């Protein structure tokens, strides 16, 4: 592991990262999801794709990377971009899981790999809508203390700036960015994903100009069991970009 300090908007961010296959000529940036970390991603993908230089990054506020301010998705993209300049990495392939997928999209890589990615707003299930309505009512009644019963699993135990960040990024819709993306895109999804249901992938496919969808058995973390197959797909898609030239 390694740590690099960056300045962005007058704030210092310590970015924890790790590089595998440092000699490899093609860069593969891997971005974990919300609340996740590079070790989880590395645990899945490290044994494969050894012709790529793997760059695992903890996004600011997660893993061992720090953030003391509230951020938006585009800030995440700019920070990762800045970091990439520092380590002299190119945007050959960027893989993002879940929230990391949105960040990857905004980075406009040559090959975009979205693994159970967010970025398309879906209607909230009735249960969640009811929870929000009830809490808003409680808030009116001055029962703010009950917040912990209602707050989303992903938002629990977040620091104040990260809670603000959560609110900034949670229901975002990046349809326009998907529509304008020129990246060769590989969508990999778990068929039993409840966090980012498969319907999201279908919507993304419609918006993206050049995409392939691969569906695997499993939930939001299906890639942990299918890393080998996913890796092979990534290599195939990357090879196709070479053929075009």
């Amino acid at each position, binding site marked *: 592991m390694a*740590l690099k*300090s960056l300045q962005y908007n007058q704030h210092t961010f310590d970015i924890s*990262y790790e590089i595998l296959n440092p000699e490899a000529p093609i860069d593969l940036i891997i971005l974990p999801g919300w609340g996740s970390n590079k070790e989880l991603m590395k645990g899945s993908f490290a044994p494969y794709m050894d012709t790529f230089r793997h760059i695992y990054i903890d996004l600011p506020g997660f893993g061992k990377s720090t953030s003391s301010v509230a951020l938006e998705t585009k800030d995440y993209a700019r920070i990762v971009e800045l970091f990439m300049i520092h380590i002299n990495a190119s945007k050959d392939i960027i893989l993002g899981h879940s929230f990391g997928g949105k960040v990857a999209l905004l980075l406009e890589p040559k090959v975009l790999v979205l693994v159970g990615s967010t970025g398309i707003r879906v209607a909230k299930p009735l249960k969640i809508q009811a929870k929000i309505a009830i809490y808003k009512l409680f808030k009116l009644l001055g029962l703010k203390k009950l917040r912990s019963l209602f707050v989303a699993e992903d938002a629990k135990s977040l620091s104040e700036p990260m809670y603000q960040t959560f609110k900034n990024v949670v229901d975002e819709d990046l349809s326009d960015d998907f529509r304008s993306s020129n990246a060769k895109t590989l969508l990999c999804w778990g068929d039993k994903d409840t966090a980012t249901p498969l319907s999201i992938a279908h919507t993304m496919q419609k918006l993206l100009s050049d995409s392939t969808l691969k569906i695997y058995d499993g939930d939001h973390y299906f890639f942990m069991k299918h890393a080998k197959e996913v890796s092979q797909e990534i290599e195939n898609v990357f090879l196709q970009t070479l053929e075009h030239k």
Partner: protein
Amino acid sequence: MKLTILFGGASFEHEISIVSAITLREKLSTYELSFIFCDQDHKFYLIDSSKMKANTFSKGEHKNMPQVSLTNGYFEQKSMFGSTKHAGVVLNLIHGADGEDGTIASLLDFYDIKYIGPRVDSSVFSYDKRYTKWLCAAKKIKTIEYEVLSSNEHKNINMSYPIIVKPARLGSSIGVSIVKEESELDYALDVAFEFDKSVIIEPFMCGIKEYNLAGFMAKGEFHFSIIEEPQKNEFLDFEKKYMDFSRSESVSKAELNSNIEMKLKSTFEKIYKNLFEGALIRCDFFVLNSEVYLNEINPIPGSMANYLFNDFEASLELLASSLPTQRRAKTNYDYIHSISKAKGK
């Protein structure tokens, strides 16, 4: 002999300390041992000897064991009806931060507890590799040339490759890398900066001879271990060193001429004297063209370098019987009394 092994600590080497303690439990089988674990939140737990297994700590089972706290002269276990004393000599076996940076030494000195381990001043000089260089310069001991880099200041290096990059304040090869060309430097520095804001770099000399010598002073005399030439493939990485910490098999003596052996021992004595009394330390040396260079001082070596001693139990007992005593200022308020008298009050 009765001995309390203090291990754990809030350090990058926390887990290594656990491995060290488990190893010593085997190596000191004729001792009457007790174990006190310092967790990452600086709480002390009395660990049942039969529970001295790595899993106990990784699963958090130590939290179900009795907590102890420091008080004047001993560790105290409070219970519903009074308290139990855990007195006797402590072996400070906390590697890295807390144990080797002088924190534990201060604590034990303050509470007047006898311990085997480096005192505050010796910790300062051995914990930070920059200060070890200064110590050696003052004592006219040769070290490898070096430069200091800091994470908040960019500067060019004036050294030709290959070089070795080390965090200033860590042992066990954590965060250490060998850099063969400039393009690899940035990452190697970031790896080291994860552990410390200050980093030292030295030329990496392929084929340089490395020798380890452990020892201590007791009853006015030096007692040395055998000299070992550590096995290395390029250098000991973390995994290897980690294995090294659980070492218990004895090693064979390094083949070296008596002149070098004398030089190693006299250099050791120069470092140790008037600074490391009370500790069993291991010095790692380089030898190049019959010249001895000090590489680093380990004031709490992994598993106390037991594998380098012919009779480790007897050695440790000898050291325990010859620990430095502290001189504490006696206050009898003479000065205030005399002023009070003069004022006629």
